[in-house]
């Protein structure tokens, strides 16, 4: 079930350079798209491939492209969202660091399909070294005639610019990213209008994740049908999973959609099992914003079916017994992990990263963090647990952008599945006041 599409040549020495990349068939898709396909045909291929956005939301990429306002006389833009900031997610960074031309190749075909002559890569500010890598790769692509005027004598022009952000998580939200790119405060816009109608500089714009765009070259080269045959159900193709936490082999893995979670955790090809032979306690399967699942629900669904790494399987059971594939940030906790501390840490992050534009998120995230801080440090009360659930439910769905939901879900899920740990913190303040307390299982009667 290990299938490499994006990372196919990752182990080839010098693959970061355009010469080596081209010797492996790199940029063939650009020639194919620009010389033998119309823009609509490229879009059609992406629609039929079943590719879904890899940034977390999982929206069908081709459909997103088809929404672009073709009646508008304004220029169109493609933006690559490389503002990867979600705790536990580090797949895009890995991809851009090791095989940057895969992204640029995909962006050229995508821009051609959209009719965009300007594209931006909006990179998280902290990825300073990656900005250098991308600029070097773009320079090489210009030199080889894959960027600039009249690419491969096709009449198509494209310029790609790398734009560093200032390191705000909110700028990964597409409209906040656009605001930031325009030089304003990175705060989300109200939708509608969606970027496909009114995006960058009020022009039609498509924002796609790095991994999403990295798939385009393969789809153009091999056809939609070949891509659609990989994967399971409505989860087509492969997925980059960035695994971290208490596992033997943390790292980025490309898997075929539908790989059983159990295989991914315990197989030597992937995570290689839990570190030091400990028992698995819980997993956050799709980046820190998705609900945490305890061992019994991450390995199997509530119906007893094997849990698979796919959009459908991970969300089976809704938020009561399921979670989401999200961005593929796979965080594993062993039996020693303190779920309350972990939830508090995540809450600190979302409080820090809230843009402050809308009241529920601005005030709610800080309130949740304060209550969790008290519980984790032995000053919690029994009623605080229900208060947290209520604050989370009052943030969820009432905010401008999904950051509010992202802040609420981890808290609500942690209490749903590990309420006993929260109660233990409240009932035994003398134990939890020890800052080094690990799992509380040994104290449980």
């Amino acid at each position, binding site marked *: 079930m290990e299938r490499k599409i994006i990372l196919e040549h990752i182990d080839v020495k010098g693959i970061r350079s355009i010469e080596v990349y081209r010797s492996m068939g790199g940029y063939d898709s650009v020639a194919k798209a620009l010389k033998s396909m119309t823009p609509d045909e490229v879009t059609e291929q992406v629609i039929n491939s079943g590719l879904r956005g890899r940034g977390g939301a999982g929206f069908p990429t081709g459909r997103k492209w088809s929404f672009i306002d073709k009646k508008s006389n304004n220029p169109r833009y493609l933006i690559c969202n490389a503002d990867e900031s979600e705790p536990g997610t580090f797949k895009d960074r890995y991809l851009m660091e090791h095989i940057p031309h895969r992204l640029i190749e995909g962006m050229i075909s995508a821009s051609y399909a959209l009719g965009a002559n300007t594209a931006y890569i909006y990179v998280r500010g902290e990825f300073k070294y990656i900005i250098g890598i991308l600029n070097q790769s773009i320079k090489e692509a210009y030199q080889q005639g894959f960027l600039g005027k009249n690419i491969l004598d096709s009449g198509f022009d494209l310029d790609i610019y790398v734009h560093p952000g200032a390191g705000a998580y909110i700028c990964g939200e597409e409209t906040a990213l656009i605001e930031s790119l325009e030089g304003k405060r990175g705060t989300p816009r109200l939708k509608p209008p969606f970027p496909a109608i009114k995006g960058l500089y009020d022009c039609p714009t498509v924002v796609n994740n790095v991994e999403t765009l990295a798939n385009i070259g393969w789809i153009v080269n091999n056809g939609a049908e070949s891509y659609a045959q990989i994967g399971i159900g409505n989860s087509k193709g492969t997925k980059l999973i960035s695994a971290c936490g208490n596992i033997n082999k943390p790292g980025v893995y490309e898997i075929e959609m539908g790989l059983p979670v159990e295989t991914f955790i315990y197989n030597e090809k992937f995570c290689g099992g839990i570190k030091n032979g400990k028992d698995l306690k819980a997993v956050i399967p799709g980046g820190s914003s998705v609900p945490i699942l305890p061992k019994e629900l991450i390995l199997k669904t509530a119906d007893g079916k094997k849990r698979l790494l796919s959009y459908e399987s991970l969300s089976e059971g809704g938020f009561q017994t399921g979670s989401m594939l999200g961005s593929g940030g796979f965080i594993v906790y062993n039996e020693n992990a303190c779920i309350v501390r972990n939830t508090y840490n995540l809450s600190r992050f979302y409080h820090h990263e809230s843009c402050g534009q809308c*009241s529920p998120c601005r005030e709610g995230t800080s309130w949740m963090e304060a209550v969790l801080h008290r519980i984790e440090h032995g000053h919690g009360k029994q009623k605080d647990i229900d208060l947290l659930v209520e604050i989370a439910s009052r943030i969820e769905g009432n905010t401008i952008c999904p950051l509010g939901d992202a802040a609420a879900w981890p808290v609500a899920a942690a209490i749903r599945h590990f309420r006993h740990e929260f109660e233990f913190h409240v009932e035994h303040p003398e134990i939890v006041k020890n800052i080094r307390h690990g799992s509380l299982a040994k104290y449980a009667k």
Partner: protein
Amino acid sequence: MAKLKFTIDNQTIEVEQGTTILQAARMIGGKVVPPAMCYYSKLQGSGGKCRTCLVRVAQGSSKDPRPMPKLVAACRTEVMDGMVVENLTSPDVVAARRAVVEFLLINHPLDCPVCDQAGECDLQDLSYEHGSQSARFEEEKRTYEPIDIGPLIQFHPNRCILCYRCVYAADQLTDKRVHGILYRGEKSEISTFISQSIENDFSGNLIDVCPVGALTDKTFRFKNRVWFLKPMDAHRDCPKCSGKVALWLRGEEVYRVTGRKDEYGEVEDFICNECRFEKKQASDWIIEGPRSITPKSVISQNHYRVLSKPHVINPLKDKME
């Protein structure tokens, strides 16, 4: 232009394309109007932030009757033909509004007894209508270092609810914008680029657009309570603005001058600083008469209105005859 049929809380109205849910509700008036703390019809781009105007769209349109999955901000969502919206008839909306009020109050200092905005504060009204009687917030409230933003406007950052109205007003009314939002998230604050720098000729309007007591009139500070004053419509021939104001009098003394606000707390015309701060004599103005104040406002107490005799229903009347 074609009219769109729109229903809110079982009341139907026809509106023009481009009308938002809030604007359409205001055309109907009364209880169907969602509250709004950040939206200001005269300030472009305002709205969508405070989330007090959240409503449920039970039917998107005649063409696509599906309900919208989440509550939407009435101030920024445009009406579609056949749209059906629930405001107070939806338990979800009522719950969400209560939640937003609670969120807005957790860091707001409850210093109404010493706040100049008391009696005309939108947050007081909102809390009264949608708030809880007791607070569940036990943490320390957020506080800021006070900053001096100039000789005319008193700024209380602790009271600010970050509605962004003053930022839009400064951006759209004044020629040299010197204030805005600093920092991010809960640490966001309204501030000036340089201390004491707000001195534009129309800067006083920042006081009028502020829904709470964060920006108040320095020349009126602690002088009087608004419910002791009589608001009068007055005008003068002003070369800079319309000259149409509300004078707040006690006896013959002018305590303050503000723009004329409608029932939704929005000024009809923005006024200049000369009218607002420098013309404090009744003789400077042509007084038109008392302003109409809504009966629910504390300012209307003991003012002008004669109470009509309540209508008594007598179920036995017919039988007795």
